[in-house]
């Protein structure tokens, strides 16, 4: 832990009439692994897009990697921020293979008019190996399963050699085995590359094992922020998801949640 990597002050974001973030403040230190949980529509994805400069602020300020984020420097900052979205709907006949898709991660760094060189392909092959996809590296991207495509998405982010790693429900719509594998991979990469990671998830079971810190979001606000073992309990989840405590307890065996 050390320097502040992300500082958000009173961020407000709106999509037409709907307020997605209504005054969110958050500070993340270098090396932290922060889990973000909350019901659908809580503003979790918007929070990530504010950090990578895609989300447009109505008011408030954001500093990322020491720079104040503005409309003008969003592109250059995004080159240093790896972002894994939810499983994408990729054309099964897309004429690109795994290596080529991972190489996209280097395109922003390369800049205009420059083509990938030997070093770039070496980086790509290394990250493809790191996510365990070397045996499929020449396969068309559309021929991969959802779990494999998420591994490629993670490799693409790592090819950026990012300082900041943002993941938006990377395990949503994957089967249990693929979910577990992706989570382990993310944690392994976070430790190995000493990244700062923001991880939006619905997988409450995995949170205590992976995250140093958890942020609870609801209705466009951060409602709680702390250590997972202390924060994830029946009461907090009952409030967060508007669910009666007995209903949360019923699900407890699956969530490994502590009783309050």
């Amino acid at each position: 832990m050390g320097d502040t990597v992300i500082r958000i002050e009173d961020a407000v974001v709106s999509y037409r009439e709907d307020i997605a973030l209504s005054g969110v403040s958050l500070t993340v230190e270098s090396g932290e692994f922060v889990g973000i949980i909350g019901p659908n529509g809580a503003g979790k994805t918007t929070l990530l897009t504010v950090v990578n400069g895609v989300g447009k602020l109505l008011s408030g300020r954001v500093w990322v990697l020491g720079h104040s984020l503005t409309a003008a420097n969003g592109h250059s900052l995004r080159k240093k921020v790896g972002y894994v979205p939810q499983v994408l709907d990729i054309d099964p006949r897309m004429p690109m293979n795994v290596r080529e898709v991972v190489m996209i991660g280097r395109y922003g760094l390369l800049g205009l008019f420059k083509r990938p060189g030997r070093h770039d392909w070496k980086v790509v092959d290394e990250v493809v190996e790191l996510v365990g996809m070397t045996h499929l590296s020449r396969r068309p991207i559309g021929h991969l399963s959802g779990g494999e495509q998420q591994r490629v998405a993670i490799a693409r982010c790592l090819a950026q050699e990012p300082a900041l790693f943002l993941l938006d429900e990377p395990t949503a719509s994957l089967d249990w085995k693929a979910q577990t594998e992706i989570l382990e991979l993310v944690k392994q990469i976070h430790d190995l590359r000493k990244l700062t990671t923001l991880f939006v998830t619905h997988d409450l079971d995995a949170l205590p094992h992976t995250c140093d810190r958890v942020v609870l979001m609801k209705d466009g606000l951060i409602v709680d922020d702390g250590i997972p073992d202390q924060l994830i309990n029946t009461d907090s989840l009952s409030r967060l998801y508007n669910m009666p405590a007995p209903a949360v307890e019923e699900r407890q065996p699956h969530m490994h949640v502590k009783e309050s």
Partner: protein
Amino acid sequence: MDLSIFSYQFMQNAILSAFLGGIACATIGVFVVLMHMPFIGVAMSHAAFAGALLGMWLGFNPLIGAFALSLGAAAVIGPLADRGELTPDTSLGVIFSLMLGLAFLFIGLMPGTKSGALELLWGSILTNTRGDIVLLAVVAFVVVALVFIFYKEIQATIFHRDIALFVGLPATLILYGVLFLTGATVTASLRSIGGLLIFSLILNPAAAAYQLTYSMKRMFLLAAAFGVLSGWVGLLFSYLFDIPSGATIVVTSSVIFMLATIFSPKRKVKGWQEKPAAEV
């Protein structure tokens, strides 16, 4: 077969026009096919057609009218779709119907014979002038040069616009650039192929190439080759059977697409997947 016809200037102009138009249209077609925006070609070609008719009605160069309206349509389609209030197909449909309405309005308002307007609808590659060829050459060169120079940015945007944005590329600018290039290509090819038929020459060669390869570079090359082949074979049939060249070019491109679909290795996806990993 008497091939002396190919020694005439008008036929040489037509062959050169088919070559240049085939390359430009098919290259644009790769974007249209891979970005799943087939309606763009339709909307653009009708915008160019309406613009040319406006020029004919008001007495200025139809080419300028075609350029103005197709580029205007490109400038409206992108932001309209980006606002997210309408799906891209809906905004394209609105532009398409507006341009079609304007085209018929201008035909109706045009005094005298409408044969010039019909020529723009069906195309007349055999009457192409040096000026038409120079315009086609400039557009084809610009399209190919931009694809070559910005290949990695274009490839990333084609793969997924959001991903291109997330890695720090100006994805919106690239998309709008593609829309403008589409407008310019459609305009330059309007007199040769015709407003109604040009869409097929944009879509069919690229759709045929899409059936045959998993490499984007190869898809660009195959599409251009199919575009040129469609033009040349279409011209030959037009001459042999004395039928409109625009129609034969488009029918040829459709036949190439059908053949590519029948022999597509992508139809054997299962077999491909079953290969041992080491071989793929």
